[in-house]
């Protein structure tokens, strides 16, 4: 259903002279998703987020936010969103409270209670009269997050949000996002090139490379792709599955849509598995180890080892 989607882009393109920063991206984020947007530096992540938030305008294509075309409904959508793009945008001469007060007035949020609540939520209640220019990078990130959360948004967009956070800060950030997602149904689009961090948080992934969305997959699908296994291709997949089950007593395997078998047991007992298959009259057409870490999977997908 269309209304299940918080964000949907159709052929979204952003061109700078002859360079496509974002190239015909079709991306979908469902309500309640924590969408991890993965890409190398310069892959087009921030440009994409700037298009979604209305800071920049697409050259071609369109986007729907909360089921409404952004060309007509962006302002209304923005009121239901919170975002940090590239870096937290703060008034350096103001305190955390004053920064939030400006934002509260801009958004027209009634009552000042939300300021204290949000500061408490991100762990910045004790900053007092300290000006933002004297904050550490981590504190600035927290204040940026507080500004994004101030209006109690339904959709949160975060661009590299853990930059500058210490390990404890990263864990706290992750817990906070999970909590908001679980308790308030907050939908989150979070970009990062730190894959380990995204892996622990996101429920859906989009991988962007050179401006193109090259893969979109759920956590389950990613786990399956990344899980170490033996990939087996035999001439009769049904018989192959029966052999694994009845002869070897294996239950942890899957028959994939491409008629291959992913075997998650006996990874160190390759000879035994292949012998059992051939002894039962099967012809093995392909037999290999597969599965990787998210980093390796991403590397393979984007061509490996290339960095901007």
């Amino acid at each position, binding site marked *: 259903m269309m209304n299940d989607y918080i964000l949907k882009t159709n052929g979204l393109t952003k061109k700078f002279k002859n360079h496509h920063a974002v190239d015909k991206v079709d991306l979908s984020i469902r309500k309640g998703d924590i969408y991890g947007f993965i890409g190398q530096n310069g892959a087009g992540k921030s440009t994409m987020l*700037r298009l979604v*938030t*209305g*800071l*920049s*305008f697409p050259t071609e294509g369109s986007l729907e936010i909360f089921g409404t075309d952004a060309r007509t409904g962006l*302002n*209304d*959508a*923005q*009121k*239901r*969103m*919170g*975002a940090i*793009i*590239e*870096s937290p*945008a*703060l*008034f*350096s*001469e*103001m305190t955390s409270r*004053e920064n939030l*007060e*400006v*934002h509260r*007035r*801009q*958004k*027209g949020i009634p009552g000042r209670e939300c300021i204290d609540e949000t500061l408490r939520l991100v762990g910045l209640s004790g900053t007092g009269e300290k000006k933002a220019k004297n904050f550490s990078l981590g504190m600035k990130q927290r204040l940026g997050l507080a*500004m994004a959360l101030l209006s109690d948004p339904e959709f949160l967009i975060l661009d590299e949000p853990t930059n500058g956070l210490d390990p404890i800060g990263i864990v706290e950030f992750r817990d906070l996002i999970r909590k908001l997602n679980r308790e308030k149904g907050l939908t989150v689009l979070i970009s990062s090139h730190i894959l380990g961090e995204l892996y622990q948080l996101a429920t859906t992934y989009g991988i962007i490379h050179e401006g193109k969305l090259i893969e979109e997959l759920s956590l389950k699908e990613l786990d399956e792709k990344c899980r170490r296994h033996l990939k087996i291709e035999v001439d009769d997949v049904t018989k192959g599955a029966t052999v694994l089950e009845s002869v070897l007593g294996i239950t942890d395997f899957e028959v994939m849509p491409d008629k291959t078998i992913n075997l998650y047991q006996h990874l160190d007992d390759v000879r035994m598995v292949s012998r059992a298959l051939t002894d039962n009259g099967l012809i093995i057409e392909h037999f290999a180890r597969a599965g990787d870490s998210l980093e390796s999977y991403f590397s393979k997908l984007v061509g490996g080892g290339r960095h901007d």
Partner: protein
Amino acid sequence: MTNLLKAEMFKLGKNRAFWMILAISAGLSTLMHYLIMVGWWMMDGTPFDAVGLGGMNALSMFLVPAFFNLMIGTLAAFFISTEFGAGGVIRNQILSGRHRSQIYVSKYIVYTLGSVLIGVLIPLSTGLIMLAVTGKLEILDGGNIMYFIRMHLLFILQYAGYTALITLLAVFTEDSGKTIIFSVLFTLLMFVIEKMPVFNIVEIIYDYSIFQQFNLVVAPRMSAVMMAEAVIVGVVTIVVVVVAGCVTFGRKEIK
């Protein structure tokens, strides 16, 4: 829009450059008024002399675009342009869900209020206070008070046209240094056009611009036609430049 105006007012109140320029304006105008009133600095031939307000001659300085621009050009640089700079706080405003034209207009209104306070009301009020302190308030009478009101109302109208131009410049350059430099160059250019022989078309445009009106509205006497012209030039300038600003800002890619 009210919320945006409240936010801009809050930002102006917290802006260090604003308070610094305000203090400079107050200090400078107090000093100039004092020096003129005690006769240390002689100044004559001003429009104020002609209406018997020679004691307020120091105000003449504050009516010159090249002078007041130094204050309000700097304010634009540190109140508007910096929002587009490294901190990028303009992003928060775009993300607030307000129409870009509303954001632009609220910036223009609050910047203009701040500029009027710094460049018009502070010099005027310090002048009146100095008159009172030096016991010269009697130079004010019904006639020159009416002149004062008429002149300042029409001047503020042209001034608001000028702040519209500087707001546009500040949004266009996105850089505080460039805003100051270009605004200074701009006022110098207007000064050159005023003093030097130029192409006919430029002269015609200048004659119907706020820059010519800055000279005309301080005249001791103005006919009804001249006043109507001043109002039309001021209002048309504000409307055209603010609309151009809204269009420019509306199409701007925010970094």
